[in-house]
């Protein structure tokens, strides 16, 4: 067990590689109760979130969610978040565990519209059911018809007779669900899900597999790909910035950066030399430090050593050779398109 923002979290239950394959091939269960939740309510909830997040909240329909962020005025990340529209006057945010206090304070500080901002994390446990057999597994335990719930949509219903928010989302690149429930019911629902998935070979999966799965899909992890000193444009997340929606915190800085042109960009890489480029290792071009690795490790699906790193924009087209400094030795790597893995359907 490791300490993760004050939570005791299993890195692995059996083997990271086995758990990883189990999610890609069948179904895996993640206890992600550490994730934070914030409810924003009131007639001005839409206006507040439009002013604090770069994505177009007004485009969401009830029961729909999108990937977005909280940004500082200078354009760097406070956090990356999921925004769920529950009703016209109610939005539900899922935020990173280690950032939840900071996020809550950030929203409250900018809450000039008198919205009700509730720190709801203690009210929710979260279990992620991920993999091709996730729908078959979860459907056994809920009367909510899962088939019509599209990606980045959710439904409020019941799981094992307990109120649950069932969201079609995840951090693995597979078909899957994130289920929000009251903490008191979490153990029971976990056990029921393990039993329901038994015929499909369900396994509990830890933080280790969660990391290798998201890395293959090049999904950002706060503190690695995105930080307070990285902007969405640099992180390759320009698609979440809807500049034409009106003003939002960070917009001016991002527009200025876009006009000037970014200098560094998040890039995928594959090791071609012997070694594994890991978080924090420096990247080099022509003997000069050129950036750093944000996440790196072996890809169980591709059986290669892959990663994400920052490089000067001119060096980010796929197929460019560069070096990663591994324990003071430059080792060859080559830029690759991301995501590394995309599921077939």
């Amino acid at each position, binding site marked *: 067990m490791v300490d993760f923002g004050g939570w005791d979290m299993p*890195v*692995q239950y059996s*083997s*990271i*590689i086995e758990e990883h394959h189990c999610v890609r091939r069948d179904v895996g269960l993640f206890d992600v109760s550490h994730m934070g939740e914030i409810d924003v309510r009131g007639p001005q909830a839409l206006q507040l979130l439009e002013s604090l997040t770069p994505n177009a909240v007004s485009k969401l329909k009830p029961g729909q969610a999108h990937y977005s962020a909280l940004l500082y005025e200078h354009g760097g990340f406070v956090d990356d978040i999921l925004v769920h529209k529950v009703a016209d006057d109610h939005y539900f945010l899922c935020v990173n565990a280690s950032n939840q206090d900071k996020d809550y304070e950030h929203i409250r500080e900018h809450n000039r519209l008198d919205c009700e901002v509730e720190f709801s994390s203690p009210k929710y446990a979260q279990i992620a059911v991920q993999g091709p057999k996730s729908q078959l597994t979860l459907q056994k335990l809920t009367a909510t018809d899962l088939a019509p719930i599209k990606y980045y949509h959710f439904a409020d219903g019941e799981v094992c007779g307990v109120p649950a928010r069932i969201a079609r989302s995840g951090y693995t690149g597979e078909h899957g669900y994130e289920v929000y429930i009251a903490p008191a019911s979490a153990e029971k629902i976990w056990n029921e899900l393990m039993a329901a998935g038994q015929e499909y070979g369900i396994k509990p999966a830890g933080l*280790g597999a969660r*990391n*290798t799965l998201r890395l293959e899909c090049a999904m950002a992890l706060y503190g690695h790909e995105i930080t307070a000193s990285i902007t969405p444009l640099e992180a390759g997340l320009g698609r979440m910035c809807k500049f034409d929606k009106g003003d939002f915190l960070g917009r001016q800085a991002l527009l200025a950066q876009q006009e000037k042109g970014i200098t560094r960009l998040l890039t995928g890489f594959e090791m071609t030399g*012997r*070694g*594994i480029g*890991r978080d924090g290792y420096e990247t080099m071009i022509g003997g000069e430090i050129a950036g750093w690795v944000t996440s790196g*490790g*072996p890809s*169980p699906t591709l059986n290669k*050593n892959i990663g994400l790193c920052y490089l000067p924009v001119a060096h980010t087209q796929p197929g460019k050779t560069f070096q990663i400094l591994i*324990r003071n030795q430059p080792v060859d790597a080559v830029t690759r398109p991301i995501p590394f893995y995309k599921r077939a359907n």
Partner: protein
Amino acid sequence: MYPDNLRYTKEHEWVRVESGTGTIGITDHAQHELGDIVYVDLPKIGATIDQGKTIGSVESVKAVSDIYSPVSGEVVEINEMLTQSPEKLNEDPHGAAWLVKVRLTSPEEIKSLMSAADYQTYIGA
């Protein structure tokens, strides 16, 4: 689990000494803590190594861990099998998945290492 003919370090390496040559490996406890091992970096044949100093590294999916030599000497053989099949370290860490063989220069260093019983107490096994 922990053979009596090996001596152990606090950094979870072991050494087995036979006629002036030490065979070095990592312990079962170490492989278990690391999880799936995917890469092993070993010194070159002929390299001089010192007790307590880094001689290479073992990487699992999640982390890198340095290997500290339990003894001083000259590397005379490395286990080439681990280059192709690092996962063998998870399967047979006290046997087929030894790391390097060393010609000892200070055989008395062995006395500073733990016995199997002491090591098991140390790791709380």
